[in-house]
């Protein structure tokens, strides 16, 4: 195994991109990342793309070949692979690219993620997303993703006294961060009252507790650390890449208020990096719902189990706090084009560690963590990065 660095990054504006198709988004982000790295097409050894459900959202599978083709690389016949782990598809693409470079099998590898979600009605989109849960034993009975997280939220509130306001504060904070991020889908501040007054989706979660339907794509260029400086003045080292799985259905989990996949992937990542949670300067965590951010900071070991809501309320996770969380705006405000999210998280950390995060820059950021979850916790992927 050899050390791996990110030498180039790109990300599209997230949002409802009515004018752009899946391939338009891929081209936009691919060009940005490749230009940022300065690599030539001929140097690229492999592509990995995270995409959850091209088949349902745009009736297009075979996304691997498609992105190589539309990135203008078809004549180079580069191996291009689509990977899928529901909402963790992006994080998984990064991990596959990382493994390819770390193993020595490849040198320059692109890790990308894309999802085009607005070409279908919201009902169809909800059903496509529900495919990340257990179709036969959850969705068949009417389960939706908000419903699964709502059930976790209700139990967390009951067991640990997490309050409705603490959930809202996650959304308020992430919308604030989103306002500082030019690519963010939402550029509006919201209040605790706004969350509470927004329509109920699955009690106790309101629409403003939920991440939106988003179009977007992101890409990273990876290279062995030893040659990274040749391409970038500010290469970002990938210190750890960890992945863990758990039962597909929420009801089969050991504990309904813990994502064990996150716990295991987190522990493994900290071990690989030789770091402990307090050493992390900022984190992008998988806040598909407000409760998910609270669970994530607990399960990653940043705060003790049950105290995530309190930590948010105390400002620990704000931009000015001890551990700024989701400076991009998170899935909640920046948007959640499912296959692209894991790559966008790494993109945000890379910008922060390079010192290029503009108005939302975390001072002196040295170590950053990205946490990407598939489904209700059947997959978790954690990466740790350093300057």
């Amino acid at each position: 195994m050899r050390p791996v660095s990110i030498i180039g990054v790109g990300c599209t504006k997230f949002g409802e991109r009515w004018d752009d198709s899946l391939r338009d988004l891929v081209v936009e982000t691919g060009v940005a990342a490749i230009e940022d790295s300065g690599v030539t097409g001929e140097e690229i050894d492999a592509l990995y793309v995270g995409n959850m459900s091209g088949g349902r959202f745009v009736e297009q599978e075979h996304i691997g070949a498609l992105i190589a083709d539309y990135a203008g690389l078809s004549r180079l016949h580069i191996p291009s692979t689509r990977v899928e782990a529901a909402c963790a598809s992006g994080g998984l693409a990064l991990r596959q690219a990382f493994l390819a470079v770390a193993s020595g099998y490849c040198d320059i590898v692109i890790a990308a993620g894309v999802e085009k979600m607005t070409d279908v009605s919201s009902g169809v989109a909800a059903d496509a997303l529900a495919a990340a849960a257990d179709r036969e034993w959850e969705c068949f009975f009417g389960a939706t993703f908000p419903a699964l997280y709502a059930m976790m939220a209700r139990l967390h509130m009951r067991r640990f006294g997490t309050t409705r306001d603490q959930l809202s504060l996650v959304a308020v904070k992430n919308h604030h961060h989103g306002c500082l991020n030019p690519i963010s889908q939402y550029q509006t501040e919201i209040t605790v009252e706004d969350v509470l007054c927004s329509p109920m989706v699955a009690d106790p979660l309101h629409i403003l507790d939920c991440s939106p339907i988003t179009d977007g794509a992101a890409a990273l260029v990876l290279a062995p650390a030893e040659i990274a400086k040749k391409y970038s003045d500010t290469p970002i080292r990938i210190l750890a890449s960890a992945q863990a799985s758990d039962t597909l259905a929420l009801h089969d989990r050991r504990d309904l208020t813990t994502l064990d996949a996150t716990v295991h992937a987190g522990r493994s990542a900290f071990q690989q990096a030789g770091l402990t949670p307090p050493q992390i300067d900022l984190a992008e965590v998988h806040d598909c719902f407000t409760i998910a951010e609270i669970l994530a900071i607990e399960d990653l070991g940043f705060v003790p189990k049950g105290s995530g809501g309190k930590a948010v309320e105390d400002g620990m996770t704000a931009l000015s706090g001890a551990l700024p969380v989701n400076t991009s705006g998170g899935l909640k405000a920046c948007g959640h084009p499912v296959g692209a999210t894991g790559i966008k998280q790494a993109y945000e950390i890379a910008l922060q560690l390079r010192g290029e995060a503009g108005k939302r820059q975390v001072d002196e950021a040295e170590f950053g963590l990205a946490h990407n979850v598939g489904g209700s916790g059947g997959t978790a992927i954690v990466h740790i990065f350093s300057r």
Partner: protein
Amino acid sequence: MTSKAPRFWRCIPQRYNLIGTHCHNCGEYYFPPRTLCPNCRRDAKIEDYKFKGTGKVVTYTTIYNATEDFDRMTPYSLAIIQLDEGPRLTGQVVAAPEEMRIGMRVKPVFRILGKEGERGIIYYGTKFVPAEEEIR
């Protein structure tokens, strides 16, 4: 229209009568059924088991915004239910949202779970209702 008849038919024993499995080696009960016991793996001795269907609500939500197939049924309540034999499952509870509470005892009823539009098959199966003292 495309019917999912074979897929529904395959699960009829589970949908209608909560037929799960039981591992004789470790004593664990599984619903939904598993043919590989995670405790014993290759040492497992799995056989079918019909669950009583009574249990309690571990957690729940009331859904106001559903996927297309369930859009006309909102609001409806969904719960994770722990069966008396041990395993947990996800199912609908037929009760007013304000009746729902954690720890509530439930029992099974036979209901329509979904329909393939106006022309396809009807998915029958098990939902749950609050188990007040037996109605009698």
